[in-house]
């Protein structure tokens, strides 16, 4: 739902880095989104096509890398991916876990033409 604000931020960050490198055009953006970051790719793409118009990022391709959630059980130490309605450890049934991946929410890199 908040993809417009998110997409505006992506554009702002990309354009700022491109300007710092005196880019003529941004061709690609590489986004990393954890499964728990609640962002819908299609929706970002939809806003992107609208708001990148008239900027150096116009027409740039968005690449989404989705990172699944992985947890480490603090009780028995195994690494696991939680189910959709079951977060406890599949090995020892413990519920003390630490999130290792799945909350990423960043612009990793851009490709530019100078």
């Amino acid at each position, binding site marked *: 739902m908040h993809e417009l604000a998110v997409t505006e931020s992506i554009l702002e960050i990309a354009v700022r880095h491109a300007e710092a490198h005196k880019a003529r055009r941004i061709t690609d953006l590489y986004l990393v989104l954890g499964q728990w970051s609640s962002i819908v790719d299609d929706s970002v793409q939809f806003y992107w096509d609208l708001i990148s118009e008239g900027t150096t990022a116009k027409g740039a391709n968005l690449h989404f890398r989705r990172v699944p959630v992985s947890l480490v059980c603090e009780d028995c130490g195994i690494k696991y991916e939680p189910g959709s*309605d079951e977060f406890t450890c599949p090995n020892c049934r413990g519920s003390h876990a630490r999130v290792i991946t799945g909350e990423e929410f960043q612009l990793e890199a851009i490709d530019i033409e100078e």
Partner: protein
Amino acid sequence: MPKHIPVVEKILSANDRLALENQSRLDSAKVLAINVMASPGAGKTSLIEQTIKGLEGRVRIGMINGDIATSFDASRARAAGAVAVQINTGGGCHLDAVMVQSAISQLDLGALDLVIIENVGNLVCPADFKLGTHKSVLVASIPEGDDKPYKYPGMYRGVDVVVINKIDLLPYVPFRMDFFKKGIEVLNPGVRQFELSCQTGAGIQAWLDWLEGGVKEFRSH
């Protein structure tokens, strides 16, 4: 040939920076701020009403209210005795640090001990946008169902307090408290929880005591 430029920047870093500015403004005025989030109908406004009434004469409260189109909730807060500022997000699904910055400017921080920010009713977007508050409070409620931590992990992970409202409905609604709490425990180990009912007043006192204690501790620093 295109050139590859590493960026590695958090997408909402601009909002995060502004949230820090809001926080330092509140810090220098020694005003504690809390961000109250929930799904629509969970009882944010009812909890805030109870809080304003329960702390009347002891804690000076300013209220920032995010609502999509009406100022109904801010009127309720004023009626209960607080200074209130309304932010109409104009259809937006969350408050952000910019909106809160301008709302804070409309409050006389020197005359306040506590700012309560009532976010837009939504379990997704508000979790991602820091406002500069010191504590985040999620109001969950029994009729929403016990699967909410599993469906909205981002929201449950980022908060300092979970208030479980409408416990008076437990006899009438299927709600597995142990299943609900197990989800919370994994997402947010040791998070403070209050079970209460804004309708009957059960459990409200523990919440008020915690909040008042927090305000006092914050002022004494």
